[in-house]
């Protein structure tokens, strides 16, 4: 991995003070016990010294990589950081998914020394997940050398506004940035692949899936980019999820790029998958396979994205494959707990496309299936719970799944499951009581799958961690 040539000067006294106060506020937040202080230090420091983000982004000798998209940011960031670590580069990252400006500053302020400098900065790389709506503003300030774009689905329309405005913001940011980053793009998502048109001169590395065996037999309802920029409807040779697949426009000729990093075969299993990959083209093509300990096609996509980013940064396939096989789950994303003699798996689902993928993971498992489904309606979850009607909960009908509904909007979820033909056995808004009921419904030695929106996941995770004797999230995540 080559070293970036950017130079940095030490922070000003004001910036050092801001970092110091930021760290103090984190200590206080953790002492109070409710929060990991993954955002507060950034809020404090960023308010005192707004230039901090530019200053700090210049420090890592290997530059900054960003990861954005609707789904998979945290896991992809986690996997890319693991690959870099295996390749001898110390990643500086925001592991708890705090992905706004304040989260990035907090990640920095947690790793600087008394002079406000990142120790051993020459050997480090920033690897940051960035909120999809915040990326346009942050790109000119972070000046990443590499930017990963995963996918774009409908998500929390009450918060982000319309899907189109997110894509337009990305395109504008890429057109305006002085030196465009190397783009790592999902070839299979037309709204992502088309970003290459907006970054002239940028190096582009694409990733995608070329395996008809994992294609859907009929399209998901939650499909958000079915029309080309020219106005025609895309034609699909294969659809893998939502509007993601092997697409082309019959009118203007826009077509899915041939992926530089291609999954030729994906063997999906209950607890993970084997992914056979070809990297590069022609005589220079290399093939390898890796064992991914995360279930579902969406996890394979995240791993491909991390592999493509690492490949673009010059890491070798042996390092990539072994790091992916050894990386555990990211926070709240397929984490596993042993509670009361049951194996509990925690799956975050916060929008229709994500929930559809999680439901597919559940239905791969052998029966009996026991599910604790949790729907909250906080700002971070989306205050509008309509989105559960865009997900295909009908996938669980006929599986004999035992379902317990919980969360602030447990009643909305129970109604949705009943309309899908799989009414819940109980509806219990309170987290602890619902967890008790779901564990009681799970056979000893069996597995309970907990599917939860963001704040519900945070709640139930701390209950699971306490019962399983695992540390709080800022201790558990590396």
């Amino acid at each position, binding site marked *: 991995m080559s070293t970036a040539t950017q130079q940095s000067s030490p922070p000003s006294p004001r910036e050092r003070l801001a970092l110091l106060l930021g760290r103090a506020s984190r200590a206080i937040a953790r002492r109070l016990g409710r929060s990991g202080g993954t955002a507060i230090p950034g809020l404090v420091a960023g308010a005192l010294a707004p230039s901090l983000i530019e200053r700090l982004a210049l420090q890592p000798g290997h530059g900054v990589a960003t990861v954005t998209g609707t789904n998979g940011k945290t896991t992809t960031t986690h996997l890319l950081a693991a690959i870099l670590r295996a390749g001898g580069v110390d990643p500086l990252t925001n592991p708890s998914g705090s992905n706004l400006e304040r989260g990035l500053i907090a990640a920095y302020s947690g790793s600087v020394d008394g002079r406000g400098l990142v120790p051993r900065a020459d050997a480090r790389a920033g690897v940051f997940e960035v909120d999809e709506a915040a990326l346009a503003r942050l790109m000119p300030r972070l000046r990443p050398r590499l930017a990963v774009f995963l996918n774009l689905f409908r998500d929390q329309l009450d918060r982000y506004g319309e899907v189109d405005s997110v894509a337009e913001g990305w395109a504008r940011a890429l057109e305006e940035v002085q030196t465009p980053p190397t783009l790592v793009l999902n070839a299979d998502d037309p709204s992502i692949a088309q970003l290459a048109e907006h970054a002239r001169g940028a190096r582009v590395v694409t990733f995608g899936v070329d395996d008809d065996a994992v294609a859907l037999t009929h399209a998901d309802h939650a499909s958000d980019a079915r029309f080309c920029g020219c106005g025609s409807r895309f034609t699909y040779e294969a659809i893998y999820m939502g509007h993601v697949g092997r697409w082309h426009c019959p009118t203007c000729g826009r077509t899915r790029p041939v992926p530089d990093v291609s999954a030729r075969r994906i063997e999906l299993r209950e607890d993970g998958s084997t992914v056979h990959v070809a990297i590069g083209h022609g005589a220079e093509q290399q093939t390898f396979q890796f064992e991914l300990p995360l279930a579902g096609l969406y996890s394979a996509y995240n791993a491909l994205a991390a592999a493509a980013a690492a490949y673009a940064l010059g890491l070798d396939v042996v390092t990539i494959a072994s790091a992916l096989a050894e990386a555990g789950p990211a926070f709240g994303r397929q984490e596993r707990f042993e509670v009361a003699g049951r194996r509990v798996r925690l799956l975050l689902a916060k929008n229709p496309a994500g929930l559809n993928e999680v439901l597919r993971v559940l239905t791969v498992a052998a029966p009996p299936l026991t599910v604790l489904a949790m729907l909250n309606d906080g700002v971070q979850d989306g205050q509008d719970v*309509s989105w559960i009607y865009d997900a295909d909960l009908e996938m669980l009908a006929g599986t004999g799944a035992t379902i317990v509904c919980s969360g602030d*909007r447990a009643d909305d979820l129970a109604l*949705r499951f009943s309309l899908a033909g799989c009414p819940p056995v109980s509806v219990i808004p309170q987290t602890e009581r619902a967890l008790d009921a779901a564990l009681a419904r799970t056979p000893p030695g069996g597995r309970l799958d907990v599917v939860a929106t963001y704040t519900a996941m945070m709640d139930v995770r701390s209950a699971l961690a306490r019962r399983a004797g695992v540390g709080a999230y800022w201790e558990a995540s590396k």
Partner: protein
Amino acid sequence: MTNDEQAQPSSTQHARRSIRVVTLYDDVMNVYADRGNVIALRARAAEHGVDVEVTSVSLGDPLPDDTDLVLIGGGQDREQRRIAEDLAAHGPRLRAWADENVAMLAICGGYQLFGQSYRDGTGAELPGAGVFDVTTVAPGPGWARCIGDVIATAVVPGVGELAGFENHGGRTYLGPGARPFAMVDYGYGNNGDDGTEGAQRNEAIGTYLHGSLLPKNPALLDHLIAAALRHREGPDSEPLASIGAPYAERAHAAAVQVAKRRSRRWSRTS
């Protein structure tokens, strides 16, 4: 035993009832989960012993000769631009259907385009189908979208309290030929200014409410099914039996609690 059988809804004794439903542009106007309305309609109609025949009509497709119920959902500006002319060309037929008491439910972006016209956030003027005498203007940058939980009281008798979620930039104003579908108790409604929510013309309803709307408003759902049956069977159509909807009623009550907690109680702003 015989008594029990006689107590069953008449549908088990007579020929099975059915309604014809047209869904408009459900592959385009589908980003705000309004397909929940179709899911709930199918499930509830089945409980009433009513078959539902759905015809999906999208860009370039002709309308069928007749129908009992028309559904259209919401979409973003992009999707509205895509369908506006195609939909406006169906305007005469849709207006005739509304006059013949065909039941309709047009949500959000679909409601806006069932009006006379819609000027979107970019200033583009989109033609409407003219089913409702309403006009919509998106005031553009600098104006907040109307986003949040809504409670409203339906004007039509028997439907009562409605719970939903609105998310729209456009402000809709009723013309002299329109009457509101509901009056806002919490939230914004048509424009946040006059307390009206949606519009109606005979059995056709336009509204801003997602949620999805029909799953958690079973009284409105039954109202639409009954209206569609009246169109199909004529004025002697037998009323629907009263059947409980426990999941829907609990979800409705939960949504009402949430709206009262975090939406503004409606009051005139000007």
